[in-house]
């Protein structure tokens, strides 16, 4: 009985050794920071050092106790020591010092985070299930007013056309975004539908988008490159696929890119001429979030891609083969989960579109296919 299960002391030591080795060998570590908040890394590492001290010391102390004071014979007696006020207060004090050593510098850096520098220029991130759009201020350097009630097919971000600051705003629907390096920005975040979270791992900081209010944070990009934008707040079944790109580039590059992006005014003007059906469909697909899951360039996506979809033979999970035509597409949009194409999941919500909108979207899908001239029983009006 005497040395039974002493492995536990050894295992505790091995766990400590293994965690330290894992730490040094791990290829999984902080990404190279791309914003001023790289300074958080130092805080994180300081916290790691302090907590590791406690982790290693206490685990080893337990291992020692288990080995040293294990039951060896039946006349062994334990000490009787109900308490030791001095030791308890000393440990309390020591812990308090350790905690303060983490908290104080943490709050110091955090006070920078909540203090937006004066030179920060505003940009806006707008989320919807499951895509990102952006708005940059125009020449006036200000973002115009917006309101959820103003959102419609022609005004997807709900800008106020009466506000002169809004007219010159630059809209980047469904990304990607570009920003100049070393220029501080204050990011305002808005959501059309549910909670999202704007997250670029290399920027370190993140913030939720909350419908009904505008949240914000600031950062300064510190190196050029192209970075993934992710959603970090569960926002429905397409959450894991709500992504975008942000490119940090030189101010010159940025300016020439910016010049090619449409202003709100230009979008309004474009819309005053009547759109043909395909253009209407494209706009709807954008606004309804279809393109978050259906690619139009042949790349892999969550749902079947739309490039050359029309006219194709699709195999359903039931084994049945169907021809993608107007009738099929209508069913697929209004009652999506009744016929599932093999290889895809039944995750699409039914889209409550009216007949006219359906026709427009189908026209758009048709325009993406070179087989759009297949024989139709009914002609699209």
């Amino acid at each position, binding site marked *: 009985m005497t040395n039974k299960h002493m492995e536990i002391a050894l295992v505790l030591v091995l766990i400590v050794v293994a965690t330290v080795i894992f730490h040094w060998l791990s290829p999984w570590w902080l990404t190279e920071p791309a914003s001023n908040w790289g300074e958080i890394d130092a805080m994180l590492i300081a916290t790691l050092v302090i907590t590791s001290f406690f982790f290693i010391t206490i685990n080893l102390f337990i291992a020692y106790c288990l080995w040293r004071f294990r039951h060896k014979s039946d006349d062994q007696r334990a000490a009787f020591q109900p308490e030791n006020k001095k030791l308890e207060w000393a440990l309390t004090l020591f812990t308090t010092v350790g905690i303060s050593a983490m908290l104080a510098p943490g709050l110091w850096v955090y006070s920078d985070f909540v203090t937006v520098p004066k030179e920060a220029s505003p940009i806006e991130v707008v989320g919807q299930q499951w895509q990102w759009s952006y708005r940059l201020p125009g020449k006036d350097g200000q973002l115009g007013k917006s309101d959820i009630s103003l959102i419609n097919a022609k005004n997807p971000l709900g800008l106020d056309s009466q506000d002169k600051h809004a007219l010159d705003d630059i809209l980047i629907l469904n990304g990607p975004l570009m920003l100049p390096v070393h220029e501080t920005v204050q990011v305002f975040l808005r959501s059309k539908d549910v909670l999202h979270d704007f997250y670029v791992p290399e920027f370190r900081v993140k913030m939720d988008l909350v419908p009904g209010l505008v949240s914000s944070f600031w950062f300064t990009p510190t190196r050029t490159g192209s970075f993934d934008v992710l959603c970090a707040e*569960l926002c429905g079944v397409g959450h894991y696929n709500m992504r975008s790109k942000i490119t940090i580039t030189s101010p010159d590059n940025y300016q020439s890119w910016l010049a090619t992006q449409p202003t709100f005014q230009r979008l309004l003007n474009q819309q005053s001429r009547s759109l043909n059906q395909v253009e209407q469909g494209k706009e709807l697909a954008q606004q309804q979030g279809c393109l978050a899951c259906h690619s139009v360039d042949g790349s892999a996506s969550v749902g079947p891609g739309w490039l050359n979809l029309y006219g194709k033979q699709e195999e359903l999970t039931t084994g049945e083969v169907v021809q993608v035509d107007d009738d099929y597409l209508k069913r697929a949009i209004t009652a999506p989960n009744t016929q599932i194409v093999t290889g895809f999941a039944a995750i699409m919500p039914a889209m409550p579109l009216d007949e006219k909108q359906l026709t427009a979207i189908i026209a758009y899908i048709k325009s993406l296919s070179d087989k759009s001239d297949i024989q139709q029983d009914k002609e699209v009006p």
Partner: protein
Amino acid sequence: MTAPDTHSTYGPQSFWWKYIWSQDHKVIAIQYFITSLAIGLVALVLSWLMRIQIGFPGALEFIDANAYYQFLTMHGMIMVIYLLTAMFLGGFGNYLIPLMIGARDMVFPFLNMLSYWLYLLAVIILVCGFFVPGGSTGAGWTLYPPQAILPGTPGSDWGIIFMLVSLVTFVIAATMGGLNYVTTVLQARTRGMTLMRMPLTVWGIFIASLMALLAFPALFVSGLMMLSDKILGSSFFMPAIISMGQDPGYSGGSPILFQHLFWFFGHPEVYIVALPAFGIVSDLISCHARKGIFGYRMMVWAIVSIAALSFIVWAHHMYVSGMNPLFGFFFATTTLIIAVPTAIKVYNWTLTLWQGDIHLTLPMLFSVAFISTFLIGGLTGLFLGNVIVDLPLSDTYFVVAHFHMVMGMAPVMVVFGAIYHWYPMVTGRLLNTTLGHWHFWVTFIGSYAIYFPMHYLGILGMPRRYYAYEDYSFIPPSAQDLNAFITVAALIVGFFQLLFLFNLIYSFFRGEKASANPWRATSLEWQTPDIPPTHGNWGAQQPTVYRWAYDFNVPGHSSDFIPQNTPVMNEGKDHEIR
């Protein structure tokens, strides 16, 4: 309370009244126990399915994104509420409180029975939620609106309604139980059982029950408010939005209000699970190290101050929620302060081992595993509580690793240790130790294998609650290998939990017969006239308590333990503090 003629006539005799519609706290405890284990098994299987998708994407065809989010949601909710909360309060609380304080039963036995049946009803409603059109909710266990009740989230038609109704029912059940536990501890202690002589197990469960009474109402009202938003079209949590291109007709509500209510419940909830575990593990360590718990008074005050502080730290779950960022200063400070009493508890557990006479029984092994897993889980909490360090880590796998260590593995280790410890009292038989050791080693080492590397995926930046990770430039391909490794480890650890369930059943029939007090424990539950104790617990006479629960190896005594109901004789001034 008048003593019955003989204890054998105290309780009902027919099977139905004795075991099904029972008002005996011990039977109710077993009912809670079996129900929570059964539903916990469902949550365990769900975790396997999730891990298979993460480790081997697409390996199981029926796990599409819908199913994945449903599994994830139900796994979390079941584990936190329907398994851990129910088992610690309804299971351990029910069984141990009356026995440990020398009472014959809970003070409201009928309410106690009702509490179980409502809990069972809550579980049944929850399970029905799997089979309604559209399936169970996939909104994440936090059920954040607006998405929880909008199309685009699985189960937003019926699943969410069943979930909320089940939760509301659970809260009613927990309130009935909680009132009972608190009142029993305050009113039904036997002669001589002062508050400061109670075993820490009772302290932990008592304070956790008080917390449940204060915290669960926040879940209750937020559940009702969300039901109203969903069914009646009110806008408590729903601002004006455009969902899938349509205006669902809400306006003026606040999604952040829900988060405040949820976490006002949700953070104390962590301690509602943790405090009973703290209490129980203190008693396991003390008994199996044959040494009184070190710093008893400090341990009691630590439990009380952790409980109080835990009501003012909730918004550390919301640092990036879009609430006023200035709150970060307050909540980071309170959160890190709570680490001090928590650290004291860890020190005192380890100092109890110091100069002990340590018997490495299964309860002791699981207690050591608890200290180690709780230690790492608590320390990583210091990263997440410190607001600035939380900014890069929130919503990543670091958080998943943290809370699984601190309120998944650690309390579960205590559950296992406690079951190995008290099983002989409940059944009269010992659990099989060979199976027990297999179970222990795989579970303990497995918990590190699963969760330690996961912290590093979080530091890398991998977001949690993702169905798939494809083509992210910052995630190296090796991360997928690591995920596969974690999945394999999780499947193995999961399998060994089945071995544990087998042991519970096997030993009930074939286990070695236990002596009356096999661990030579001091606390009252082992001093009943019958083991297992019968209805009414104490036979003709309730015990009288003369000392605290930690008289192990008292100098001058030949026996290495003195039960609480042994009168004091010439023990000098050492006795004063007890």
